[in-house]
């Protein structure tokens, strides 16, 4: 009996390891309770492809992930709750790379008792298409179709993959002082973030990596500092006395100045933006730069938020 349960648990080991190392994860979804998305200009091109795949799988749920971030997904995929969305992308990130897999999943809200099949196909390195479907079709059958479905989109996928460290298209130019940001839509539970807006200029790979990790850590801690004390956590009503409800007026902006960096957070409507600035940025400029950046990203046609 015990061995069987142990066997059942072995499936989760990867996930547990991943959760334990979450601070090192490039995603913010665990922190923000919003699923990481990628902002690409080719989204409209890719939308029919994923819908076709979902249709072939006789399922309304299908999405395309690049580097763990959702690029496009079917409408029904977006209907999944924030928790399901983040759990799914966390699970997919935790699993080892393979060309195709079939994993049973329980959706906490949609079907907490009946397992569904999560089928994933690696189209290119770091590019993954996945569908959630019922008992049919079998994985092998769908896998044979994959090449036919996605061959025309290979070039598009390759260009999409190029946005990966930046996470927003190169066409969108943000202020040079911005080192990184998190932009959250609290109503759709999507989160766009980036810590490498400026290309690695002359620095080594490792150095750049360390730099990004540090920025990510700073942003993470800034987020934890602000959310819960000034901003409401996305979606949930804070009943604590120490939360933002203690304040009689609504905080809209907040910033901190450290010797190494500056951070600015702004909330307006459903959007929350957390920006990491270089230390040389003038404090008074942060407000307008942040507002501009928010508008720039949100108002863009290709905005995934």
């Amino acid at each position, binding site marked *: 009996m015990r061995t069987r349960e142990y066997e059942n648990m072995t499936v989760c080991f990867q996930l547990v390891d991943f959760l334990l190392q979450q601070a090192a994860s490039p995603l913010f979804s665990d922190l923000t309770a919003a699923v990481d998305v990628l902002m690409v200009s080719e989204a409209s091109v890719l939308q029919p492809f994923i819908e076709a795949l979902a249709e072939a799988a006789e399922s309304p749920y299908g999405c395309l992930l690049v580097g763990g971030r959702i690029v496009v997904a079917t409408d029904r995929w977006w209907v999944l709750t924030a928790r399901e969305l983040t759990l799914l992308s966390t699970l997919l990130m935790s699993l080892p790379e393979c060309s195709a897999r079939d994993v049973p999943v329980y959706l906490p809200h949609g079907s907490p008792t009946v397992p569904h099949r999560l089928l994933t196909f690696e189209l290119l390195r770091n590019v993954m298409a996945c569908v959630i479907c019922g008992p049919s079709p079998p994985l092998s059958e769908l896998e044979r179709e994959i090449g036919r479905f996605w061959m025309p989109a290979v070039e598009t996928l390759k260009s999409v993959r190029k946005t990966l460290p930046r996470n927003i298209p190169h066409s969108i130019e943000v202020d040079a002082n911005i080192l990184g940001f998190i932009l959250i839509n609290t109503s759709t539970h999507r989160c766009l973030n980036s810590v490498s807006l400026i290309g690695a200029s002359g620095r080594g790979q490792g150095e750049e990596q360390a730099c990004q990790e540090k920025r990510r850590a700073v942003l993470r801690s800034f987020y934890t500092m602000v959310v819960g*004390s000034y901003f409401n956590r996305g979606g949930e009503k804070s009943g604590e006395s120490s939360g933002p409800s203690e304040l009689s007026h609504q905080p809209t902006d*907040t910033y*901190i100045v450290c010797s*190494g960096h500056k951070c600015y957070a702004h909330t307006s409507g459903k959007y929350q933006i957390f920006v990491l600035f270089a230390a040389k940025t003038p404090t008074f400029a942060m407000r307008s730069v942040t*507002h501009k950046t928010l508008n720039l990203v949100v108002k863009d046609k290709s905005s995934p938020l």
Partner: protein
Amino acid sequence: MRKPRGSIEQSRKHQNSNQAHANFHQTSHVNGSLGHENESFSSGPKSQESAAKSQSKNGLSRHSKASDGYILTENSYGQLHLAQRLNSSEDEEKIKSRDAIRQKSKEMHQKSKEMQQRLRERQGGVRSKKQSNAATSEANSSSASLSAPASINSKGGKERRIKHILLSPEYRFLSGNETSGVEICQKLFGITVFEYSNGKADRQHVYRDRKLVVQGVIEGSKAFLSGNISRGDMLIRINDVDVSWRNFTQLLKAQHKREVRLTFQSPKIIGPKSSYTVLQVPEADLCLATLGKRLAHIQEELIHCNCVAMYLTLTQATNDTELDQMEDVVYAFPPGEEVLTALRGLFITLSSALMDVVGQPAIRSHLQLNNSEVHVAYKQCGRDVLVFVMPGNRISASSLENVLNSFSSLLVLLFGDFQSVFQDCDRVWLDKLIALMFHCALQLPSSRLQSGLVQYPRLASMLTSNPYSVRLLGLPNKDKLLCDEILNEFESMDFDDYLNDAELFLRRKYVIRGTSLYYKGLLITTHLQEEQQRDVNLFLNCHNLLSLSSWQEVNQVFVWHEFKQYASQNTRISFPVGYKPCVTRSFLMVVGLHYYYLAVLIDAGWSPHDSQDQQARPLPLLVDQGRATLEQLQTDEVHMSQCCEESLTNTNLDVALGNPDHLCVHHSPRNRLASRDLAASSKSSSSNAKLPLTSTKMANDAQVFARSKSVDRMDERDFSSQQEANLMMRRHGSKHSYGSNDSGGSGSSGPSKQSKGSRVSSTTDLTSISRSLSVVYIDKGMATIGRLTRGHDNGLFSYVHLDDNAGILVAPTDSQVLEQHSGLQAEVLDNFAVACHRLKCFLNFSSKDFEDGDEKTKATFLSCVDRKETSIKEAGTLFSCSFQSSHDKRQICSLSYWVVGRVVESPRPQLLFVCFHESADQCMVETAFSLGFGT
């Protein structure tokens, strides 16, 4: 009266024999103070708890069973208490010495220590053979005590400390018609012997064979100068003739020689190295004076709301056979608490297990107790742990931690050693202190809280949350300078005129380190170093003395307490070989007069050959001079109270703060969203912002309330302005009479002469600083928006300047708030207070508030990245609110303002919180920051 005593002795003997093996902790203050009400023998945790409890309130708990009805009927226990103590002196001696030996036997392992002890005892033996005998017998018995504790009792009783003192009697003081020996003794030697009879002759024969005990030594007498006679000493021989009450008077009358040899026997003192501690408060009860409640009342309240303070130990004090249930509780308050006391095993286990497992002490935990949350805070020291438990609905866990931390640092400050406090310390005082701190921390309703002091609770609570700081009273420079001058005069200790010849040429024992002056709980000025000022603040805050002075005159308050931490600090510094520094002890003296406190930090130098038991008493001269200094503030020429009241109530003196009402943006719902994006939209707002507005219904109420308040205030101010006019006249008069430019100011109790000329114009100059500041704003600001200027369109709403040393400056002051009576402003200020509290946590500033060990627990911004790089220097939040205008329902008003906190590193760490309108120009804000917003 005699019959009960017989029974007392019987039962006591019975008790003693019963407790021959018992772990009998005993705290005794044989050398307790005169004005000290806490003379108590609190029996150890072993003896009947309930009985001890009921009696400890009366300061008597030593012979718990025995004293039924006899002592308790007497309220003025001071006299009778002592009588009873002497009555049982023989037994006590045994217990004390046994206790001492038991303690000694614990130290037996430390060989070096024992060697020192023996060495000292042998040195003593040179002086007196008898003593050396006692010493060796003691040493023998202590070595034997390991195996046979019972045998000590018989031997230990013999241990005595004998001292011989040669005094030349002052025969000239004798008038010849003295009747009692007590009177003669007082006149001849300046020694006051305790009189048992208390005027009742019929009782006298009872006391015939009692000891002659020194009650006090008259200051300045020969005996005092010898420095060897202390309170509690027993006079046993005069010129080697045994003396008792029977022959006392005759013996003294027979003295004619130039020198008389007095032999004293000093009692063995158990407990802390007695330092002479005085805490005089109105009504002689700290709790009653500050809270208007008796200790028992507070205890009941605290039991009701699940509060307890416990000092728990894991070390088994002795290998006693009879194990008691409560042995691990060294100290518990409130005494009747049972639910949480029963859980102490949990606390002990948790704290010690954590220490063993993760190597870090437990800090706090949460309990669910009868469906209510309870916070627990721990303070580990060795194998012992101090636990504070408070209900979660009344206090947050972090503030509970702060309470515990401040309490423990106060104990360290006062006693140097945290651990010994609970075993040796005066429990009544400790009870009261904890009761006070709990009461304040939980914000229980106090009957003393009067309606006249309705403050903005958030702002107030934010400031009182740190026991190390006090609020600063923003006095105009002229007045502050005057206070400084007066304090300087006192600090110079130029008292030669007031000293008699004998004292004049004595080496000065006391040196003033620094002073600080408070008015109505607000700091006026300080001449102390930052650390010391913080400690003094801590002491005053923990004893609630500052808030006491804010509503009543504190003429009776007098505090004299040793700061043992300072002494131990000195010893920690390693000195070059061969140099032995003079032992210095530091004392805090607080003198209260009217609404003032003068806190004086005094260093007392002790030369090594002075006996260690020597008590450092408050020097009457110093006390008198302290009072005189405060009285000096009240003279017609200075009338500092007027100035203080003025700056407390007057709203025009400070940098005028803006009223948020005037800066609201009015717009119809249509363009509401559009204008939100426009940051500078408020530029046009002030022109159409003339409409008075109220935000919510609550604000409306607040406004009405505030208005009624302000009417009262106005009357008061009219009155005070009339007074002011009178005083101006008087001051003119005084200028003519004292007009000469006299700078020598050694007459410290006389009127201060050097200040008059400059003070005449002070009322008109009061605003000079603030004005000059506003000029800066006008110059810089007018060109753009002109926001941070004086007047109603000012963009600066509020500021708080936190400086541990100089105190906290808050603007607007309470009276200003009351004056401006706007619901919106109240909301803004309220919000400001909360935001400040948040920012303060972020700003890491408070890391200095506690010892290094607790620094880790502070909200550090980022742990994984280099800490230095991520310490926050500035943090700000933009708040916005919008509400319907009361006049035009379609109009929506909105207001956005920044709350910014900034750490100023140099010249000393300070914290500045500012609240200003969003339209304020950045360069203006920077200028204002660099000027400290007029602070």
